[in-house]
């Protein structure tokens, strides 16, 4: 046993944790399956609630990597446990370490599975991730017909709080994402009407409620309490929504030029794969259970295996960063404890 640690996953959690661990003098190797690190954050434009550039947050994590080794393009095919810790195998190489930190994260819910919303069928139905990509490209957001959208709708809880797709849980960050993106579109198109269709707005963190307030007061974003039931397409490509305005108790129909689906979180393929290899505890929602959600949320219940980030369920970027640091601290304690035992 030595002071080697392998971090699996190079999203914001993995990068932050790797940097912390390296800073504490441990020998860190981060394995990432893609060719680039940065995960979802690398594809995101701006973050709620202050609209900070995602790239700034990512840059900060990259700068803090110290001498952690980053290996990208690694497909892990096996993990074995032995007296010196763990060996992680990929088709090209093997990596050995005393401790593993799993930070394999989430994927966005595949929006086309909500068949009645028409993603992948109707041209003007996009996801929040598609929209963010357009923001990042710096291009104007246009309808598929190349027109400026006059009316835009955001649909909350897509793939979340929905037993029909097998996800009972709330993805938590979509609420505020919808509010943030609504403001950004109002900024881009002041004359447009922007609607959020929601069931509850969970403004759980600092300055979120204020952002909601700003969206209403400064930007005139409208909020309609009702879950989208179905949409269909007009001959001109615009979208017809059917929902109930539950606050008036009437069915409501509205034509929208651009519909944005706020896709929720699901455990990533990487999370599912690594979980099987290690025998991690999967919850009924498919996310990974820690040893204790309250007091041991970075322990996996398996000695030497630690958890960080969205593999345990939906979280925001700031929470992921905090959780990664907490996990790094746990790993450091573990490494020093085994060093003591061996001395």
């Amino acid at each position: 046993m030595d002071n080697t640690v392998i971090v699996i996953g190079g999203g914001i959690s993995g990068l932050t944790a790797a940097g912390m661990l390296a800073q504490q003098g441990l020998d860190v190797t981060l394995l990432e399956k893609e060719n680039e690190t940065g995960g979802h954050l690398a594809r995101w434009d701006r973050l709620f609630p202050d609209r900070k550039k995602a790239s700034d947050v990512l840059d900060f994590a990259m700068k803090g990597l110290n001498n952690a080794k980053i290996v990208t393009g690694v497909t892990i095919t096996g993990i074995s446990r032995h007296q010196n810790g763990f060996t992680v195998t990929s088709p090209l190489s093997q990596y050995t370490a005393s401790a593993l930190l799993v930070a394999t994260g989430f994927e966005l819910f595949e929006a086309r599975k909500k068949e009645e919303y028409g993603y992948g069928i109707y041209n003007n139905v996009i996801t929040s991730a598609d929209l963010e990509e357009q923001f990042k490209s710096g291009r104007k957001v246009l309808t598929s017909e190349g027109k400026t959208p006059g009316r835009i709708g955001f649909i909350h809880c897509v793939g979340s709080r929905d037993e029909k797709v097998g996800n009972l849980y709330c993805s938590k960050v979509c609420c505020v994402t919808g509010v943030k993106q609504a403001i950004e579109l109002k900024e881009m198109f002041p004359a447009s009407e922007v609607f959020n269709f929601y069931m509850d707005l969970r403004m759980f963190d600092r300055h979120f409620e204020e952002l909601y307030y700003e969206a209403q007061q400064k930007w005139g974003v409208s909020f309609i309490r009702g879950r989208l039931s179905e949409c269909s397409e007009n001959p001109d490509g615009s979208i017809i929504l059917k929902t109930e305005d539950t606050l008036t108790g009437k069915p409501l129909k509205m034509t929208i030029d651009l519909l944005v689906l706020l896709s929720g979180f699901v455990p990533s393929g990487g999370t599912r794969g690594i979980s099987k290899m290690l025998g991690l505890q999967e919850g009924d929602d498919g996310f990974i259970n820690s040893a204790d959600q309250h007091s041991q949320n970075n322990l996996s219940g398996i000695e030497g295996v630690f958890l960080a980030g969205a593999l345990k369920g939906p979280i925001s970027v700031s929470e992921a960063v905090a959780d990664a640091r907490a996990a790094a601290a746990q790993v450091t304690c573990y490494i020093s404890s085994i060093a003591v035992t061996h001395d």
Partner: protein
Amino acid sequence: MIDFGYTLTRDRQLDFDRGDFRYLKLVKSLEPSMDLCIGCGSCTATCSAGGFTDFNIRKLHTVIRRGDPESIKAELKKCMFCGKCQLVCPRGVNLRNLILAMNRAIEILG
């Protein structure tokens, strides 16, 4: 035309595309704080008139927003102007003035 013994009915669906938003525009200009409503229903819960009738203040300003002002015309008269709604609104919507503004809009627009 044949009488079949029943009629075609205009459906109850709120058709936003055919909404009448003149009232909303006017009311909003008279009381901009109406935008801040979060639909919590505190106003309705405390409403003096609502205690005796099915008057629902939260619903009234919501239907104006949906471009369906017709249904509120008779309803508005039930308000007793006690002002309790305004005291409880967590978003500080000036409800008393909002009702005056809705009345004013009906006066102007019919």
